[in-house]
């Protein structure tokens, strides 16, 4: 009786240990993959205030495109441009009179924080003055942002006028 009980516990014990081991492995995988691959949404101001602590991290930045700064070489497909800070949350954008107005003030206001973007690839059609850019990439040394992906929205073209990262606040 006593013996069989012990054996039962032992028998189950190895499965419990095995199960714990697998559970620990899964948790480890999730935690480490989340830490190394999480992509942070940020405004230009937030990026500047955090400074170099963000170098190398995967980031998603939103800002207003400053038309005069766009430089594109069609042969090498090298593209650089500056973006100006726009507030990240919906309420602030509505306060500022909608996205088009907010983008316009951002571009015309010389005191706004700016960020230089470098991208290699075809120049997007929608990349123009006062467009909203949503850029995925990482911050390099010297405060230049290296983009892997560009997403552009023109409030005139998209009547909803709310940037996608605000709607999809996930």
């Amino acid at each position, binding site marked *: 009786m006593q013996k069989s009980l012990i054996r*039962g516990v032992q*028998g*189950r014990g*190895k*499965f419990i240990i*095995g*199960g714990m081991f*697998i559970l620990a*492995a*899964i948790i480890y*995988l*999730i935690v*480490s*993959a*989340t830490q*190394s*691959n*999480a*992509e*942070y*949404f940020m405004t230009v101001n937030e990026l500047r205030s955090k400074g170099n602590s963000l170098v190398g991290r*995967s980031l*998603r930045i939103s800002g207003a495109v400053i038309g005069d700064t766009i430089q594109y070489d*069609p*042969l090498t*497909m090298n593209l650089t441009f500056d973006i100006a800070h726009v507030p*990240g949350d919906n309420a602030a954008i509505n306060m500022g009179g909608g996205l088009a107005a907010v983008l316009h003030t951002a571009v015309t206001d010389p005191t706004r924080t700016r960020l230089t973007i470098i991208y*290699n*690839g*075809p*120049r*997007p*059609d929608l990349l123009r003055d006062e467009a909203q850019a949503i850029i995925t990439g990482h911050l390099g040394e010297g405060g230049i942002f290296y983009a892997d992906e560009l997403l552009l929205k023109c409030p005139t073209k998209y009547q909803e006028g709310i940037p*996608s*990262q605000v*709607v*999809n*606040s*996930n």
Partner: protein
Amino acid sequence: MLAQFGIGMFLLTFLLALFSVGAAVAGYFSKSDRWVEAARRSMLLIFPLITVAALTLIYLLVTGHYEIEYVYSVTSNDMPFYLKVTALWGGQAGSLVLWSWLMSAFASAVTLRKWERDRELLPWVIVVTSVTLAFFLSLTILYENPFARWWQTTAGDFVPRMFAPAGAVAITPMDGQGLNPLLRHPGMIVHPPMLYLGFVAFVIPYAFAIAALVTGHSDDRWIRLTRRWTLVAWVFLSIGLVLGMRWAYDVLGWGGYWAWDPVETASLMPWLTGTAFLHSVMIQEKRGMFKQWNMLLIILTYALVIFGTFLTRSGVFSSVHAFSQSAIGPMFFAFIGITFVTSLALLIYRWKDLRAEVEMRSLFSREAFFLLNNLLFMGVLIVCFWGVIFPLISELVTGQKVTVGPPFYQRANGPLFGALMAIMGIAPLTAWGRSTAGTLGRMLWKPAIPSLLTTVILLFLGMRNWIALIGFTLVAFVIFVTIYEFWSGGRSREKKVKENFLVALWQLVGRNRRRYGGYLIHLSMVVMAIGILGIEVYRTTTQKTLAVGEDIQIAGYTLRYNSLAQFPSTDGRFVTRANMSVFRDGKLLGNLYPRYDYYPTSGQMMTVAGVRSTLADDLYVVLVNWENVSLIQAPFKVYHNPLINWLWIGSLMFIFGFLVAAWPDREKEKREE
């Protein structure tokens, strides 16, 4: 007129579904066969009625009744006939109609079977299927009416309504907006129905599971009765997923097949629990174990099926699937919550009755490996679930907007998929019940040697990427184990029955269809893994703006830009098409025609890649439509995707394996009766 008729039909079927639920419950508790029979008949009546309603909608779509808002939003005059028919599932409202239609067809098929032996289960099967059906029908009637028509209100606004708002005038547009160009693809005709067939078919085993829980049948009858349903559901879901990959590869023009976008991930989740279920029910049938676990898996699968339908159709997450947005989200959440909690409560109520009949003893037994398989599938599920909800949690807790992309899923799921492949190789060699490391080792060394030899050869050939080395070794391992299983099974039968080896093999597979069909499916999975490893590890890409006559190089290929043509197509598209020649070692291999189509009606663009596909690799060229292309120069993006074709070859093998496993075996079924 037809519209009123159509929605009237839906209203009628909704009432019939409610009646079925009531009559079945009443029949069960009063032990009255007449009530149960009434429930069954009303259930059987629903399918023809929904068919009439769905055909009415298809008729409106095909004949261009643009006064109906749904018809207006998904069809246009320039669309070919077959696309007008398939526009049924081109939008939200129509997809829900398709769901209900399939659900009623499956429910009818189930209620038509002979029920003498399982009389007790029938009422609850009817209840579960009817409740599900009633939920989807209520969405159609209350929120997503495909028959609503256009009205112009006194204020001048255009609104879709079933009945005229006060003072409004009926409006009939001349032409519709047309189906989203991305959906005008042969893959799109089959991808959603396949996925839905899979989704809906999983409701049937769930219904039987709930019926077994309510009536207190703790045996495995519900599993035996729904064995084929489960397999069919799983196969359709799998085919649906693969077709989705193929569509993404052909149409989205980014050179990939799977982006881990929340909607894709959500449709993968029921597949994961379904696959785990498919494996673990075998343990219950063979050993009387895992009963509670199987219940939990099917309950989870059902919840994930509804969650998947909800995600694909709610626009909660922005993705390539965000074709339609709607307010039915809260309804879905409520329905998932209520059914999930009720099911769990039932399971807890019956928890003690569902104890295992024997205890698992050995870590090296086959049941232990099935358990491990299940844990790993749940692991992948948790990773996927975390990836989908992490952004929501993160913002709630820290206020910081964070998201995780494909690298997260690849890194977290990669090792789990690798472990699953290893088990796929080891498990067929294990024995039931008592088994030790020694006995397993004796089985293992034969297929292990050629697998390790494969690794050495790959190393010798210059493969240095460790992920690829591990991956291809595991692929080789599973292939050798499978061949070994067929070979040793055939040989022992050859000796025992004195048959020719091939005849013996044929007989062996014929008599153990589920087992050997399963092995063929395993084989197809690793063949798919070859394609996935190829593209994930070895894909290269390059881009360049080319003037006419200029070259671009990738992976030993040279592509020359010859010319550009722009012309209107007969169906209203405006086509911009480049002509490129592909060379290798100075030899012309053929021409590619990457293009993009502009749809003036909707103002949408569609990129169609030029693809040269071989067993070794795909050359995938995209004419980038972002920048204004001129006749002198155009920007191109080129992908080199090694081995990707094996993904599609594997999926065809997969269907073959399924046919072997699911082909009806009359003798065996008779024996089991």
